[in-house]
């Protein structure tokens, strides 16, 4: 199982994602200017402030050369996980529905949150059971998930809402407490909290490991 973790200028959590993925399989960094996914079975678009969050978070990163490959890979069913800034990049790229807006408090918040697993059938949640609760840290200023109501209804109906903040755990004002969504086929998932920071009990929780384990379950 080979994971490819994208590295943009300004990415912060790519090494953490690399380390987390390495616990489950092989993991390599993919430079933003390259056109080569290096045979990755799964691609992770990591957290951080790619391109300084200039213009809009993720707005510039989505146009980097590596993202053309990621888009093609995703449309052919390849596994893609967008974490925080990565989620923003995937929404900007149109690989995921909706958009991420500034937190209602307008403040950056770093806090451990409980997430309810809503859909345990996506490529990134297969190792979970529906109703599982995962303790995972969230840290962002622009994480309020939004889509027009009809789109949200459709997402709910199609099972594209993958993770929700457990009662009392949401802090950014996300529509319907949505923490993570998938595309229609379920191979592309984006979430605001950081599973790569929940792989070691010593740093708080190992619940995040299950997302990486899920990807590894998918037969290559």
């Amino acid at each position, binding site marked *: 199982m080979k994971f490819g973790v994208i590295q943009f200028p300004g990415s912060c959590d790519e090494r953490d994602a690399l380390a987390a993925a390495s616990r489950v399989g092989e993991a390599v960094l993919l430079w933003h200017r390259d056109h080569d996914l290096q045979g990755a079975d799964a691609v992770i678009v990591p957290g951080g402030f790619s391109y300084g969050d200039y*213009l809009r978070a993720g*707005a510039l990163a989505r*146009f980097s050369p590596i993202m053309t490959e990621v888009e093609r890979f995703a449309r052919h069913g390849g596994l893609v996980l967008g974490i925080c800034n990565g989620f923003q990049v995937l929404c900007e790229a149109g690989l995921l529905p909706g*958009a991420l*807006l*500034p937190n209602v*408090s*307008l403040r950056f918040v770093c806090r451990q949150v409980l997430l309810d697993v809503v859909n345990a059938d996506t490529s990134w949640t297969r190792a979970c059971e529906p109703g599982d609760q995962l303790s995972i840290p969230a840290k962002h200023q622009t994480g*309020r998930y*939004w889509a027009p109501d009809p789109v949200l209804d459709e997402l709910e109906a199609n099972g594209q809402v993958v993770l929700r903040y457990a009662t009392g755990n949401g802090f950014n004002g996300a529509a319907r407490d949505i923490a993570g969504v998938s595309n229609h086929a379920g191979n592309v998932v984006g979430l605001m909290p950081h599973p790569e920071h929940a792989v070691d009990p010593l740093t708080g929780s190992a619940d995040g490991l299950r997302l990486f384990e899920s990807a590894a379950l998918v037969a290559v």
Partner: protein
Amino acid sequence: MRARVLIRPKAGILDPQGQAVERALPALGFDGVRNVHVGRLVELDVEDPGQLPAMCEQLLANPLIEDYEIHGGEIHGAAARS
């Protein structure tokens, strides 16, 4: 030609920045202020102003959550999208 693009959050989407400013103004003694929205300004010299709408659609604004207005040159008034 010098163009100016004004980008603002779509009506109906919660704009906490706008709300924060709206709350702060009366505290400074400015009353009778309503409907504050905070957005972005992009200024640029362009050779072909006809490309501006496409620039807005593809990069400068996120049409899902933002409206934009183009000002300058042959493009008069708003090319606003809703």
